[in-house]
Structure formats: C-alpha cells, structure tokens
C-alpha cells in the first residue's frame, strides 16, 4: 500500500512517516502543497493524508485539484482547526475522512484501513472471500476459519490483490505499491511471494485464488462474500 503524506510540520511529518512505514505502508511525503500536488498527480497512491494548513498551496485546493484531475484514491485530512467549517470544506472538496490534531497514530491507522477497505468496496474490517478472510485491522489471515501465519510482504501482496479483486495487477504496479522508490525491485522476489502465498491460501489447489496472466501480471479470482 503506497501512501502520500502532505504535512508542513517537519517533526510531525517525520513521525507519521515512520509510524506508517513501521505499519507496513510505503510512504512518500511532501512538506508543502505544491510538492504534494506533484507527487499526488505523478504516482498512483492507495491513499493520501493531507494537512489542511499547508504553505504554497492550501490543503483544500490541493484536494480539489487532485479530484479534478481524476485522482480517486481516498484522502484523509488532518486539521488543527477543530471546526466544522473547515471539516465540511475539506470533505466537500473531495476528502473522505478527517482527523483532528493532535491525534493518536492508532487512530490514523484505523481510519486509513477503513478508507482503503471502503475504496475497494468492503464495508466491514475483514475482507471475506469464500473460505479466505483477511482481517485488515489485526493483519491476520484465516483460511477455512483457521489462522494462517503470513510474513509482512506476503500480507502486503495479498492485501493489495484482495483490495483489487478481479482486476489484472501488473508486477510493476505491485512493486510500486509495496516498495520504496529506492528499493531494489526484483520481480523474481515477487514471484516467490506469490508462490508462497498460493501454498498458504490453497494447499490442496482446489481454489486457485491467484491467477498468473502471462506477460501482464496477477489476478485475484475469488468473488468477495457479500454481507
């Protein structure tokens, strides 16, 4: 999951970046609205966290521009001015949720999780696909009701695929959303993760959840269970 954080307060931005990277996200950050807009338009993010009080280009204008230019990823706004005029303006401009400063990192994580989940069309914290159930809050996988251990990268791959079910996800898209820009992107490593995931999700090869589309990428082929 690749995130964009736009926050002008250096200390706070650094701590947010660190906390979210620790939580397994790939994080880009910008300290002003203009850089934020550049990143936001240039890369395909899974979600963005944008402070409303930004230098050079304020948060509301940034969000409006991103939406006008067709960027649909969920946006979480941070606001120090705890008033409804600002909150409603931000949500009106195209943001999806808000967090008022100061905040607990857990709250940011929870809101982000919910936003990512909702963006993929899931109303509940768990992503349910037949026998497979991924709890995005506790970051745990259950297969046929039994817990299955996943490594951090395996979890990331599975979560991304589950949030884009039925859609062909290229290897480059996957790496972009799983790794930092400066990370060594070896697609062989990705293939290893996918192979291991297949074994854990479908030991008897009856479900075949992850299909390889030759030359294009992967597709998650199980239909989500509706509530």
């Amino acid at each position, binding site marked *: 999951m690749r995130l964009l954080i736009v926050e002008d*307060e250096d*200390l*706070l931005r650094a*701590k*947010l970046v*660190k*906390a979210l990277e620790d939580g397994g996200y790939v994080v880009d950050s910008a300290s002003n609205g203009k850089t934020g807009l550049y990143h936001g338009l240039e890369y395909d993010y899974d979600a963005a966290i944008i402070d409303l*009080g930004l230098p050079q280009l304020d948060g509301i204008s940034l969000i409006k521009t991103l939406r006008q230019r067709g960027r649909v990823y969920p946006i979480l706004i*941070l606001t*120090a*001015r*705890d*008033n*409804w*005029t600002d*909150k*409603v303006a931000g*949500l*009106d401009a195209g*943001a*999806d*949720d*808000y967090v*008022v*400063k*100061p*905040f*607990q*990192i*857990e709250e940011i994580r929870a809101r982000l999780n*919910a936003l990512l989940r*909702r963006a993929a069309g899931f*109303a*509940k914290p768990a992503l349910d696909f037949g026998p497979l159930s991924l709890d995005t809050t506790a970051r745990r996988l259950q297969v046929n009701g039994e817990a299955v251990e996943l490594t951090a990268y395996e979890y990331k791959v599975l979560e991304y695929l589950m949030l884009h079910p039925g859609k062909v996800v290229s290897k480059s898209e996957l790496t972009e959303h799983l790794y930092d820009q400066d990370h060594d992107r070896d697609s062989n490593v990705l293939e290893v993760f996918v192979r291991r995931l297949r074994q854990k999700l479908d030991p008897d090869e009856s479900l075949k959840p992850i299909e390889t589309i030759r030359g294009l990428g992967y597709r998650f082929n199980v239909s989500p269970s509706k509530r």
Partner: protein
Amino acid sequence: MSPPANDKLRYSLQTRLFLAFGVLLILFLGLAGLVLERAYQESVEAALRERLQLQIYALVGVAEPDGAAFYLPDTQEARFSQIDSGLYGFIVDAEGRERWRSPSALNLNLSLNLAEDDGAPQIPKVGKTLYGNLSLPGQGELIWASYGTYWEVQDQQFNFIVLESSAPTAAQIREFQSNLYLWFGALALFLLVAQLLLLRWGLRPLANLAEDVSAIESGERDELQGSYPVELVPVTRNLNLLIKRERERQQRYRGMLGDLAHSLKTPLAVLSAALQELRGGANLDGRQRHDMEEQLERMDQIVSYQLKRAVEVNRSRLLAKPVAVAPLLERIMSALNKVYRDKAMQTRVEAAATVQFFGEESDLMELCGNVLDNAFKYGASRVAVSAHQEGRTLCLTVEDDGPGIAPDKRGWVLERGARADTVRSGQGIGLAVVVELVSAYGGEIRIDESPLGGARFSIRLG
C-alpha cells in the same frame, strides 16, 4: 430625575419641528387676525362718525329757530321723519333742555339729562363734536355725536345731537370677523398640511438612512447605498467605513484564533506522536505514558474549548449576514455521510429554501456539525434534521434512531456540556460547544425522545 429628559427625547424630529412651527403659525395668524379685526372696526366706526357729523351739518343747515323751539322744515334725510327709523336728531340748549327732536325720535324715551355721565350725549364746547355710545332699552346700542353751535341771534349755544343705531355696523363687523376667521382657519389648515408634507420630504433622507441601517442589521444589505444629501454624506461614509472595519476586524480575529489553534495543536500532535514511539520502550512505564497521554489530551481539549469560546464571545450579530440554512444542512449531511459511510445512514433534511439564520455562518456550521455528528455517531440507521423559522428565530430539530438519552440523564448531558472545561479526557467537547453557542445566541436547547426511537435535540436560536 431622568424621566422628563427621556420624555423629551421621545419626540421625533418631525414631531418637534411640526409642533414648533405649528404653534408659531397659530400665534402669528391669531395676532394678525386680531390686528386686522381692530383696524377694520376702527375704520368702520370712523366712517360712522363722519356720517353722523355730516348728518349734524345737514341739520344745522336747515335749522330755523322758532321762539324757544326749532323748526326744521326739510331734514333731507328721510330717516329723520320716519318713526323708530334708527336715526334720531335732537337740539338742546346749553342747559340740556330739549328744543327739538326729529319725528323719528317721538317714541324714544331718552331723557337728555346731560349732566349725568351714563353714556348719554354730552354738551361740547362750541365748534366741537363729542362722540359716545349709549344703550337704550328697546333700541339696543346707539352711537351718538353731539355738536355745539353758537347762534348769534339768540346769543346762545345750541347743541345738535344725532343718534344712530349701531346694529348695522356691528353686523358688518361681525360678518367681517367671521369671514376673517374662516379664511384664516383655512389658511392655517393649508399651511399646517403643507408644513407636514414639507417636513416629510425634508426628513425623508433620515428615514431612508434608518431603513438602510435596519436593512444592514437584518443582513439584506452590506452597506449604506443610495445617494444622500450632502449633510448626511459624511455620516453615511463614516458608517460604511465603520461597518467595513468591524467586519474586517472580526475576520482578522477569527483568522488569528485559527492560526493560534494551528500553532498550538501541531506541537501537541508532535508530542503525542513522540509519545507513541516510546511505546514499549524501557524508559517509560505504562503508567507514566498513560498519565502523559491523558494530560496531553486535556491540554488539547482546553485549547480547543477556550479558543472556541473566545470566538463566540466576540460576536456581533448586528453585522451578520443571513445564512441560508437548507444548503448548509445538506453540506453537513453529505460530509457526515462520507465520514460514516460504513453505517449507510438514511438521512432526511427538511428545510424550506427560505429558512434563514441571522448570525455567523461558522457558528451555525459548528452547532449543526456537532449535533449531527452526535446523531450519526449514536443513530443506528436513520438521521433526520428539520428547520423552520418563526420570525427571526431559527428552530432546528435533529433526531436519530439510536438508543436515545434516558430522561434523567438529559439535564446532566446538557449540564456537562455547559461546564466543558471540566470534562474528563475521552469526552468530546462537541455538546459543550453547542450549549455555549445556544446561550450566546440567547436560544434554548431541549432533549427528548424522537418518534424514530432515539434522541431528539430541539434548538431555538435568536
């Protein structure tokens, strides 16, 4: 002892000017009437005297002494010969003995006791004429002229006296009077009406100014527009400047408080995030961290609450523009629908397009945002808001289908709201802000049970 002063102040400019000019007008017309009446009366009387004098000369011209009496063969004036005609002639000697009387005076019971001063004709010196008034029973008022002559043949003074009824003259004067007062009355009425109209016209710009100011007060207009007479231009210009300054000042003040909030909250956020990093670290045990987190949260709430209060206290509703309520409610509803998308709330907004709030838009936003946020938080599947207007009062109802608030807790909920600086950490300051705002606008807030099953907040503002 100020009540008299207040009474004086109560008269409008128009009333003052009208009363002052009105009194002056009546006084002037009254005096002018008196003077005219007197002058007319005098001229009429003078004419009458002159006529009497001429009658006397005529009598003197035809009078022929006949022993002790006089003989006047032809008096020329027919009325002397006609009995009770109202014109009477006498000739008396120096002692007042009657020597002749005109046939018209045969019935006249006049004792010419000239010595007694009871208005009866007097005896003048030779060549002089005296005048006087006399009242006789059956004859009414008579005016007389008495002329003294010297007859050389008799070597004696004789006095010619002519009396004439003054009734026709009096009638003439009365008619003049009534005419005079009729015309003066009409003139006064006309002038008063004209004065009233002139005053209205002259004071119209002031009335316009008052209307414009009240239009600003009700928010229909931003500033004093239209052309005013030169005397008022400095006033309107300064008023406009004052209004503009005050609006700018309020805006600056809000901006300043917002910046203050931003610059206080961000360090708090940094501190809070730093504290998170220590989680699990050996330097700090759980209890210490918990204490610090709690204190940070309290600081945050106090900052929020006091800043909001500062904005609220510094409020001038006089200059506020009216806010259309329906679109504002729709905006909040759609914003909250995003935030609580997982709940998939059925929402309903009932507000006519004409419903307005006379106050700051941000205040209404704050108030509705907090109450509706509460409804979304506690409601199960439905939230409804309705607004209507009673005069300048805005009535809002917000309800949900949540668990509601028990009757014995309702007062407590609002009371806790009213003393939000004492709230424990974990409790929001939303309701506190609502209660504070409602009281700042002199409104009221009630909680009861909604037909939907949950809580219903009824708020009246202004």
